[in-house]
């Protein structure tokens, strides 16, 4: 039996976890002709060289061509459809000290955690709006939001939701397997940054401060049988171009070794949170974000590209035609946000505040079918 090499080994071999300056210099030397070739080379398929050309500074002059090719690929693979989902926040108690996050344990904020019954109330609200695809979000509140808690919750949610995904603190392979058996079909776990040094700088303490452990997460998720694995880097921590190379290698690794799970990419751009000094970040412009999305689409024809309400209505409406396949709508990013009028702190400030029905209507006007259901709880046996 051939032993599988871990992604941790791969990223070291490829030198993507350190010395980003050297990488960046190489990207700066990419020529227009390399970009021209990359745009039409094996549409929708990945190679490191192709992606590098597409995210290079030289590719800035080719964004329109890239957008047209990306739009074409997306329509071919997904049609003119956009899947809608809604997040429900469970807890803002956290034992980690991540400098970019509003829920940082050092922040003096009013925190909140919901009982299973309270989460179900929030879930009822979004089910009534039409959602069948739910994302459960929690900070690292291990004593309260236990695996058992999520499992119980998931079994209840299955009555109303056809897809249940989680975006919570990192679990072990066995814990993921337990949740898969309880009906959770997708897990999103961002690496935040693929740069070891930057990772160390922003994750001061707590279980999440271990870069190597974090890197193993998606492999554990896939090995546990999960159908959807959401990858992402928190855009703004390091050079987004090199982050994209890391993300793509990660996706490629997972697709090769765990061929029954589908990989999707999210694009969380840093936005103002409580007590956060935005001056220390490398914020992405809209153009940066668009270039990154297009480059990934041109390399991964079938990957889901996911966008949250962190982004504004105007930008979201534009990005829909460029390769995005799934968006959240009508989101509240604080625990109890759907039922409770009180203002506990949000994880991030929502920029697109439209109601779900309005988002769906905007999609229809754009010639896209809003898809509420694209999975079924019957796939998993409980």
């Amino acid at each position, binding site marked *: 039996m051939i032993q599988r090499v871990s992604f941790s080994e791969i990223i070291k071999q490829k030198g993507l976890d350190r010395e980003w300056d050297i990488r960046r210099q190489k990207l700066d030397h990419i020529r227009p002709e390399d970009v021209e070739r990359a745009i039409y080379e094996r549409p929708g398929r990945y190679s490191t060289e192709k992606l590098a050309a597409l995210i290079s500074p030289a590719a800035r002059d080719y964004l329109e061509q890239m957008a047209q090719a990306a739009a074409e690929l997306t*329509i*071919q*693979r*997904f*049609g*003119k*459809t956009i899947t809608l989902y809604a997040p429900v926040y469970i807890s803002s108690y956290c034992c980690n000290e991540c400098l970019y996050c509003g829920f940082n344990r050092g922040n003096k904020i009013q925190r909140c955690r919901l009982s299973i019954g309270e989460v179900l109330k929030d879930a009822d609200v979004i089910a009534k709006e039409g959602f*069948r695809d739910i994302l459960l979000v929690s900070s690292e509140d291990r004593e309260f939001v236990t695996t058992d808690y999520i499992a119980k919750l998931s079994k209840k949610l299955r009555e109303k939701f*056809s897809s249940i995904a989680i975006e919570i603190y990192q679990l072990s392979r066995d814990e993921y397997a337990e949740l898969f058996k309880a009906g959770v079909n997708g897990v999103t776990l961002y690496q935040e940054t693929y740069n070891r040094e930057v990772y160390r700088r922003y994750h001061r303490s707590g279980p999440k401060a271990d870069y190597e452990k974090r890197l193993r997460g998606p492999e554990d998720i896939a090995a546990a049988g999960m*159908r959807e694995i959401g990858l992402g880097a928190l855009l703004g921590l390091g050079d987004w171009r090199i982050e994209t190379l890391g993300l793509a290698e990660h996706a490629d690794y997972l*697709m090769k070794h765990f*061929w*029954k*799970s*589908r990989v999707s990419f999210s694009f969380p751009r840093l936005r103002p949170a409580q007590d956060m000094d935005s001056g220390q970040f490398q914020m992405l412009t809209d153009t940066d974000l668009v270039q990154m999305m297009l480059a990934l689409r041109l390399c991964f024809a*079938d990957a889901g590209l996911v966008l949250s309400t962190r982004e504004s209505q105007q930008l979201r409406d534009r990005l829909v035609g460029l390769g995005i396949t799934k968006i959240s709508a009508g989101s509240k990013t604080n625990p109890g946000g759907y039922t409770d009028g009180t203002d506990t702190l949000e994880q991030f400030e929502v920029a697109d505040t439209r109601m779900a029905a309005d988002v769906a209507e905007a999609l*229809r006007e754009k*010639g*896209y*079918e809003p*898809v*509420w*259901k*694209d*999975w*079924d709880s*019957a*796939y998993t*046996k409980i």
Partner: protein
Amino acid sequence: MDKLKIANKTFESRLLIGTGKFSSNQTMARAVEVSGTQIVTVALRRVDIANENDDMLAAIDRKKYLLLTNTSGARDAEEAVRLARLSRAATGIEWLKLEVTPDPYYLLPDPAETLKAAEILVKEGFVVLPYINADPVLAKRLEDVGTATVMPLASPIGSNQGIQTRASLEIIIEQSAVPVVVDAGLGLPSHAADAIEMGADAVLVNTAIATAKDPVKMAQAFKLAVEAAELAKDAQPREKIKAASASSPLTGFLRD
């Protein structure tokens, strides 16, 4: 002309339509209507099959079309069988397009799991139409367990590449005792006509229609192409022959 017969039902149209990827359910409904199809397939993952008001189901007139539910996305036989049972319990529909597609990218069918699921479902009384790679032996194995058709792919689903599995498809068509429905990869009306001219009993088209700039017009184009090919088959075309040779190098010496 002979009519398409699957299980105990006869159909006027040899075109089956898939419902994914349309920009709206209204467009889908119009394309379905114009195509002249009588069999429409829907993914169980996409619809709330027990709910008649489901946005997609509501757009399909079940009095006019046979609703063929499919198990797209099922990873193995167990999942496909479970989905099929739930769907039948909710709707009473026994016709099932069996899809076991563990690879979420190319959605290629798993032969071993498909055969396993087909065997179980046929025994339980389902009318099973299995989606398969163009594998002649698998097609015969499925026929042996009692499937109503076989549905070999022309090329990877959604790829619009036309018939890339020709050599194997020809064998399947030659050997099959059940209808052969060519499914997946037909990107143009000429590809569909090609399949029918080759001897396929029917074709299933989705992406080529749904993602065309004008899906309704494309649906009509596919209808006409399938009808043209059917008519041509009935007219019994002559076999293709290699270029004729004017001289007779071997028998030219014969003078008497």
